[in-house]
């Protein structure tokens, strides 16, 4: 029998970005809140202190900040008729863990979605006709517009001290920014860092080809900055220990560097770490959540009652907890009915390595997760005419090293031996003189790509693992090849001695062994009604109105941008509605 704690006003499941945003919102409103985090407590000091954090093996390879797969992983199969195999070792994606979640080890590339990403189906149908969308493609519109989210994108950028250059300020196209972005109400809060050398060469090449490159919007603050909550961030020094690391300089925005300092002393907030939630509890009607059940560090099962439940774990964990709690109807690919687990999507990325001569000093170790990088957005979203290319979606194309980590990011040209004297000579010749470029591409959602519970494999508590059914579709192979051809064109103009591209081609199935993207999406998607979605426009469950679900699980299909800006915008949009309406009068915010 579970120990039953005293009821609080709200329980938060998962204390990463969206958990922290909701913790602030709800405690500001005077609610008593308990946040349950499966991983350990983590803070800049002592957990990310220099020099211990500058350890590639520990953080970049073994992944000590990631979720330990030994306790819980996912299973993966390529199609609904296959047997899924456990994801036993990290490869394709890395999952966050502990206070701050994936917001600790992320890169800080903080994008908004493009306006047409949010009404994708109606936009594509309107521009290209209904037949342009293949029948198996299950993309749908968000039930919220860019204009509605814009103030919240703007706020979150200010919370994070994002460095960047506006490209569309209140409808006016500005030089040096992204001309394809939706109109923004304000500039970025901090100026961009100058381009690192690989990005400088890219910028010049892109300009020669007529493309408009601009700084990657970077939640790596470029200056000493105080955010709207009074929390101070420091200037990024391009230390190279950013992507996969916690920031020792208080430069990379994370819950620790933006939100948690003001929450730390609040008497109406209790954070319980090492608390592994196994179920959202429901009353007898199944329509009202009554709290969360979790297992604490010593293995005790504990019930935390609360009349408001915030599900703010990572995308996959949100979906798994809904399924374990039997909330909503699980998606069935045979009938297309049911919504929980529907529209899982991913990203498709390509890379081009540019190998320069030894007098070109790339210095790949000088860099950050986002700061100092440059990008072009011409071939993303619907920024170009798709009528002749035969696919939907697109990619951003970016240049800039993220640390030049020797174990994980050593670049040698194709044909170089993998070991022996030839390899040893090649690493010296190329390490300081090679530059990585990448595309980050959208993946659409499809009827046969979804999440469900695995019938065989379990976590360390005996509960079913989440099962992913995913492979690429023709649309994405075409999209990635098109994007890669544009990237290769830019790289040729950068005039390296050699260049080589890694690209998934038709016949290459999804390969979990290779890191590609942690931007997994869908499974608890947002939509206009209960038959096409798990949550409404305010992130509220259609089935259980006192349950709100946050994160990239809400995305009906994936975008060619990093997801954090969009999912934080959706969380702040919801938080505003909670304050305005829900907390005053709990109940469904949208009538089904």
């Amino acid at each position: 029998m579970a120990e039953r704690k005293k009821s609080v006003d709200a329980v938060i499941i998962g204390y990463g970005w969206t958990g922290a945003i909701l913790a602030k919102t709800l405690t500001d409103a005077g609610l008593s809140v308990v946040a349950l985090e499966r991983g350990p407590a983590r803070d800049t000091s002592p957990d990310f202190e220099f020099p211990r954090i500058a350890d590639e093996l520990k953080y970049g390879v073994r992944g000590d900040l990631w979720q330990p797969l030994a306790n819980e992983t996912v299973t993966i199969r390529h199609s609904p008729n296959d047997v899924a195999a456990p994801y036993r070792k990290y490869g394709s994606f890395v999952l966050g863990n502990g206070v701050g979640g994936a917001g600790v080890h992320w890169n800080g590339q903080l994008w908004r979605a493009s306006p047409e990403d949010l009404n994708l189906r109606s936009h594509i149908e309107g521009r290209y006709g209904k037949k342009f969308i293949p029948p198996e493609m299950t993309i749908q519109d968000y039930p919220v517009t860019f204009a509605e989210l814009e103030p919240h994108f703007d706020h979150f950028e200010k919370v994070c001290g994002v460095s960047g250059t506006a490209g569309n300020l209140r409808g006016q196209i500005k030089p040096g920014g992204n001309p394809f972005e939706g109109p923004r109400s304000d500039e970025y809060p901090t100026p961009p860092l100058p381009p690192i050398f690989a990005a400088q060469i890219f910028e010049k090449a892109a300009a020669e080809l007529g493309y408009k490159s601009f700084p990657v919007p970077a939640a790596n603050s470029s200056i000493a900055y105080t955010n709207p909550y009074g929390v101070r961030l420091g200037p990024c020094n391009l230390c190279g220990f950013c992507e996969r690391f916690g920031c020792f300089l208080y430069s990379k925005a994370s819950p620790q560097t933006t939100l948690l300092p003001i929450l730390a002393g609040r008497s109406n907030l209790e954070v319980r770490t090492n608390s592994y939630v196994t179920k959202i509890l429901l009353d007898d009607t199944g329509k009202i959540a009554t709290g969360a059940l979790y297992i604490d560090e010593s293995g005790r099962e504990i019930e935390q009652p609360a009349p408001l439940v915030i599900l703010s774990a990572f995308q996959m964990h949100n979906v798994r907890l809904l399924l374990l709690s039997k909330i909503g109807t699980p998606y069935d690919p045979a009938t297309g009915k049911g919504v929980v687990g529907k529209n899982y999507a991913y990203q498709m990325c390509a890379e081009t390595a540019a190998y320069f001569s030894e007098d070109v000093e790339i210095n790949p170790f000088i860099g950050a997760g986002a700061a100092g990088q440059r990008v072009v957005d011409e071939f993303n979203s619907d920024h170009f005419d798709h009528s002749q290319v035969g696919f939907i979606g697109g990619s951003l194309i970016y240049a800039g090293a993220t640390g030049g980590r020797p174990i994980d990011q050593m670049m040698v040209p194709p044909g170089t031996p993998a070991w022996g004297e030839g390899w040893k000579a090649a690493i010296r010749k190329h390490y300081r003189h090679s530059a990585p470029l990448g595309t980050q591409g959208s993946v659409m959602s499809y009827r046969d790509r979804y999440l469900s519970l695995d019938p065989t494999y379990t976590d360390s508590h005996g509960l079913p693992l989440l099962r992913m059914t995913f492979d690429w579709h023709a649309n994405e192979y075409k999209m990635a090849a098109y994007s890669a051809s544009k990237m290769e064109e830019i790289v040729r103009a950068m005039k390296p001695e050699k260049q080589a591209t890694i690209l998934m081609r038709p016949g290459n199935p999804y390969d979990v062994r290779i890191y590609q993207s942690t931007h997994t999406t869908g499974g608890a998607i947002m939509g206009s009604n209960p038959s096409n979605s798990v949550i409404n426009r305010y992130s509220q469950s259609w089935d259980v109105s006192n349950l709100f679900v946050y994160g990239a699980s809400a995305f009906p299909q994936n975008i060619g941008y990093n997801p954090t800006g969009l999912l934080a915008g959706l969380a702040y949009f919801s938080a505003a509605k909670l304050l305005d309406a829900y907390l005053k009068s709990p109940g469904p915010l949208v009538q089904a």
Partner: protein
Amino acid sequence: MPAATLGALGIPACSDNRRTSASSSYAPTYFRSAEWAFIIAAVGRLIPSEGMGPGGVDAGVPEFIDRQMELPYGHGAYFYLKGPFLDNSPPTLGYQLRYTPREIYRLGIAAANSATQKLQGKDFAQLSAADQDRFLALMEKGETAFSTVPATVFFAQLLANTKEGYFSDPLYGGNRGMVAWKWIGFPGARADFTDWIDQAGRHYPYGAVSISGATDG
């Protein structure tokens, strides 16, 4: 790169063939003596002392691998190792064996020595360098059949750990004296490029530092 520059960086321009002496002071904890001979020999071929640049044995890679075997990593603590284990899952779905890294080495080294005994009547470590290279290539391509752990899995583990030991911070026992960092020009745990934000494209002149604060002079 002229030899004079290499000398200034403290890197021997040619091999001085310290393959065995460099690791002789370290007594392995996990590996048994025949296994240890295999590790030293194999690392000595994967990153040889021949040619310019530090060899893996001189850099302490065997010690690194042995020490890793005693850490949670060696015991498989980073991996999901619950069954059932599928034997016909496509390779693109990743590692599906029951073995921890420790077990992969134990089984893989035994299988490798048994294969070289069959081929040439000697353990791997007793083969000539050229024969060792040929046998490593057979494992790499899966052209020798092991009855326990697949040769390709064992080889991939060995090569990955060898490169980890070569490039990781010296605190783990490899990359002694930061030799691998000096060789490629990686400044290690320096992590401060404030003064370089405006100097993109210039040669970076400073040497490596380690987490312990050691510098390369």
